[in-house]
């Protein structure tokens, strides 16, 4: 078993799930996501977020709109699409069941 590969797979799955969670609460932009992740002790290399958001948009989970900002350049605010909401629901349930399983096994 390639432990590094497993770790990065787990992290990658988690990352997508967490982004869906954040975007579900309210439309959010990349810097917000980074800050919230930092607050939640989740270590993310800033740069990895952009390709990920880009792919989730292409997969139809997220959509964005540009908003002018009083603090710096205009920002892309990401929100969930209907597909995204659906995906989040499924991920929520799998997360709950995984959490239970791991809790029992530990």
């Amino acid at each position: 078993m390639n432990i590094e590969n497993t770790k990065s797979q787990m992290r990658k799955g988690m990352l997508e799930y967490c982004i869906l969670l954040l975007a579900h609460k309210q439309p959010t932009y990349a810097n917000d996501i980074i800050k919230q992740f930092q607050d939640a002790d989740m270590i993310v290399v800033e740069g990895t977020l952009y390709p990920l958001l880009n792919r989730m948009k292409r997969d139809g989970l997220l959509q964005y709109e540009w908003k002018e900002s009083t603090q710096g350049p205009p920002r892309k605010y990401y929100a969930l699409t209907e597909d995204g909401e659906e995906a989040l629901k499924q991920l929520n349930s799998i997360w709950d069941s995984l959490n239970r399983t791991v809790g029992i096994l530990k």
Partner: protein
Amino acid sequence: MKKNFSINLYGELYDIDEDAYETLDKYLKSMNRYFKKRKGEEEVADDIEHRVAELLWERKEQGHKTVDIDAIRHIIQQIGNPEEIDGERDNSAESSLGENFMDAAKEAAQKAGPAVNGVYNKAKEHLRGRRFYRNATDKILGGVCGGLASYCGHSDPIWWRLGFVAVTCLSQGFFVILYLILWIVAPEASTPEDRLSMQGKDINPQTLGEQIINETHDNDAPFVPRPNHTGRGCLRMLVVGMLCILLFPLIILLTLSILWMVGMSALALGFSTILTSDPMVNSTINFLTTNGGSTWVIAICLLIVCIIPIYTIFRIIRDDGTMGMGLTFTLLLLWIAALTCGIVTGFLTVTNFASWNGWL
């Protein structure tokens, strides 16, 4: 003291140092090139540019008046590797010269047994993703030896240079032609991507960022723009010395061709009447005044054939960078044309002269 100017990033002005600007520009451009090649990810480069703008804006809010090189290095490091973790990497890098060659070598190696096969695999691993470039940052003439050293994974090209000088002497100059061919054919490593693949490193946003940051460190000492390898100065002196020796006959030939033209002008102006005692001289002068056209052509061709190498040698001695491809080709073509024209006209004139005198 550094030159500083303003840039406009999404409507906001920033005062940025020249070196910081160049580094940022290099970074953004290489990100652009990188993501443009990947379908659907073109937008990521734009996201990165927005993020840079945002970080610069935050910095400005904190009261930093200008953007310096350290700030840019910090921003590049902060953004880190803009690639998905474990993102499927399609490393379908263009097959390099070396790889094509290796494919042909593969069968031969497998036939030859395990020992050769081992060497083959090692070489293949080494050449993966590596491309041959002329090394623009470490060169004496065209950077061919520097490039060869990088291609083979040596950090110091001194042995390649000495080797080249040695085989040139042994082969009575044949390797000079090989060098010139490599100089013309091989591209110069001009972008950070080129310099990465010259060293055989993977090209991804992470390595690009690192390479760009490293290059800024190289520039920290502006008076030593090139790495000072063993014997670099000595070798250059040697090359320059050899070129200077070459200069002498060229300059003598040039002087001769100019004297020739002066003489021809004198003849045309009618000074020939002074020298008419010897019948041989007399007949030669008669020939020259009637066949003036072809002798002028020879003189002009000789002039061009001398001036072009002299010009090139002076440029090399002064070390003011390589000539552009266009100029090199034009000069080379002009030189070959002048040489051919001169030889042909010369031959025709000599046979003409012989029959004039009744020798043929």
